[in-house]
């Protein structure tokens, strides 16, 4: 009687330990699941090019001022847009150039992360080309010019006259981010 209960107990403990282990792995499985979910639903689509929509039209009645901002964080680079702002019609595709310079004597890899103001701009901003889609590698004292090509959709609310597109370069340390795109 006693023996039977205790072997049943041990069996139960094994089942529960396996379950615990599964849940630990599940916690990690949430990471690719999260990324896939965002990809499928189009949330958080910061690092991938958008496709040109077919029924694209240009609202020539409106003007929007786009301000360009550039920052670096703990990176020995100079990073600036070649023009500080642009005035465009919603729906009109535009390309602007950014310039980065590596001031150090070593090769540095960086990744730019975009940030928008107002925050909902990401819904109306379609980017076809951007240096932020890939990591950038600069040799010592190398200078590079890189384009961003985008359109702001005419559906953007009419009270918006000025928007800001900002990029911050972060250094990718060796070994960091290898598991990620």
């Amino acid at each position, binding site marked *: 009687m006693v023996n039977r209960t205790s072997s049943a*107990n041990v069996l139960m403990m094994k089942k529960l330990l396996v379950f615990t*282990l599964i849940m630990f792995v599940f*916690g990690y499985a*949430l990471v690719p699941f999260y990324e896939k979910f965002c990809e499928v639903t189009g949330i958080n689509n910061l690092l991938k090019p958008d496709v040109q929509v077919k029924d694209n039209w240009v609202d020539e009645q409106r003007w929007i001022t786009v301000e360009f901002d550039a920052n670096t964080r703990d990176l020995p680079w100079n990073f600036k847009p070649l023009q500080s702002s642009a005035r465009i019609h919603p729906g009109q595709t535009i390309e602007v150039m950014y310039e980065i310079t590596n001031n150090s004597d070593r090769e540095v890899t960086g*990744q730019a992360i975009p940030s928008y103001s107002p925050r909902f701009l990401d819904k109306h901003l379609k980017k076809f080309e951007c240096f932020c889609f890939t990591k950038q590698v600069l040799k010592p004292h190398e200078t590079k010019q890189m384009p961003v090509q985008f359109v702001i959709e005419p559906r953007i609310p009419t009270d918006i006259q000025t928007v800001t597109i900002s990029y911050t370069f972060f250094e990718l340390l060796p070994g960091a981010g290898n598991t990620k795109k």
Partner: protein
Amino acid sequence: MAAVHGDAHGHGHDDHHPSGIMRWITTTNHKDIGTMYLWFSFAMFLTGGTLALGIRAELFQPGIQILQPELFNQFTTLHGLIMVFGAIMPAFVGFANWQVPLMIGAPDMAFARMNNWSFWLLPVAATLLVSSFFVPGGAAAGGWTFYPPLSTQGGLGVDLMIFSVHILGASSIMGSINIITTILNMRAPGMTLMKMPMFVWTWLITAYLLVLVMPVLAGVVTMLLTDRHFGTSFFNAAGGGDPVMFQHIFWFFGHPEVYIMILPSFGIVSEVIPTFSRKPLFGYSSMVYATASIAILSCVVWAHHMFTAGMPTVGQLFFMYATMLIAVPTGVKVFNWTATMWQGSMSFETPMLFSIGFIFLFVIGGFSGVICAIVPIDIQVQDTYYVIAHFHYVLVSGSLFALFAGAYYWIPKWTGRMYNETLGKWHFWLSMFFFNLTFFVQHFLGLAGMPRRIPDYNLQFADFNMVSSIGAFGFGLTQLLFLYVMINCIRSGEKAAQMPWDGATTLEWTHLPTPAPYHSFEKPPVVK
């Protein structure tokens, strides 16, 4: 009848355990371990409470007087962590250790040695957590939810916190495995699942929730650790990670966690109210189903903590409605308790007072929870004192009041002595008064826009903050009265009657002598 038979057992046994400190270090007796859990959690409660008083002292007046902002942030962070993981959760595990074997007629917990081990992990974890105040850079200061990027940037204190959470998680998982196995495999003959006392039911469901989400918490803090030290980028935007993902994974743990802290208190209240109403619990099976529904729903509402973090409208609507749905099974419980009291032959000893206080104040906290679930309102009150008021109404006047009710209710069975009823009532009424003084005004502060976790505030908030601080110090001092009542009861309380509560019907009252012998139910009772 059975009282006598149990007694004979108790004396027939030689207690061959070591004495002194080694008794407590090596014990595998569920009663000893339960006692240690309860004392440990009370010590942590006083520690976390002291931090809370530091916070309230700083907020007594506008301006920076006592705590510099950095230290203030450490206080709020550690107050939350200590109260959640050090005080409330271990206290409930202490009750489970004492009561689950007694209530189902089992001789001890299923894995007695592991039980000892899961307790002794706790002081280690608590030492890590508290000692982090004294390392360079101080303790973790990014809030008890340790969101990155703050938690990926902090100093050594954050690492200590991460290890502490790992150890606490391991302890909880072992405790839950023990409780589940005990309940499923070791019930007395005749005790079917649907005859189990409500407290046992709520703990069974809680233990399942714990093994479901604690490993996820362990995973997320491990990711944090590897992000900090081993070059991964789970939450680091520059490396392709996403800090918002942390919030999703954390709250996948975090929301079931708040039910882990409230379901056992539902169980305690469901034992106390029938006893002092001298009626069986109204709607027993609906109580079981309501508890299970709450547990299941709690796993699909996590993102209501993150309405302002950015989410599609359809997501906000889903989480809003799912959250509001929890009010339904919770309402079933509240109405069942009320119906249990209805036309009962009620008496108002301290456990009953705390249980009624629990229902009254928990319902207020539940309603403010429904208010917070509504997206447009939540966007207004996010991170304000309204949220602080809401979760203290469910955690202090919910979980803590139920713990007090349980302590007063079972202390005669545990010690064989009665507590001082007059002082117990004083403890209740003072707690009730000062609790509301502290937290009710925080609703107004939150609606007026006072943000949480900030050591200074606008002059317009001064009066209510002063009221709240006075209440907090009153509440804190009142808990020393509880300590006195308990020590007084243990050392020199009057001898308790065999059946101190005439309405009690569960096995520990009907089948065991008072106090419960060191070894109980070695021959299982037969339940009809």
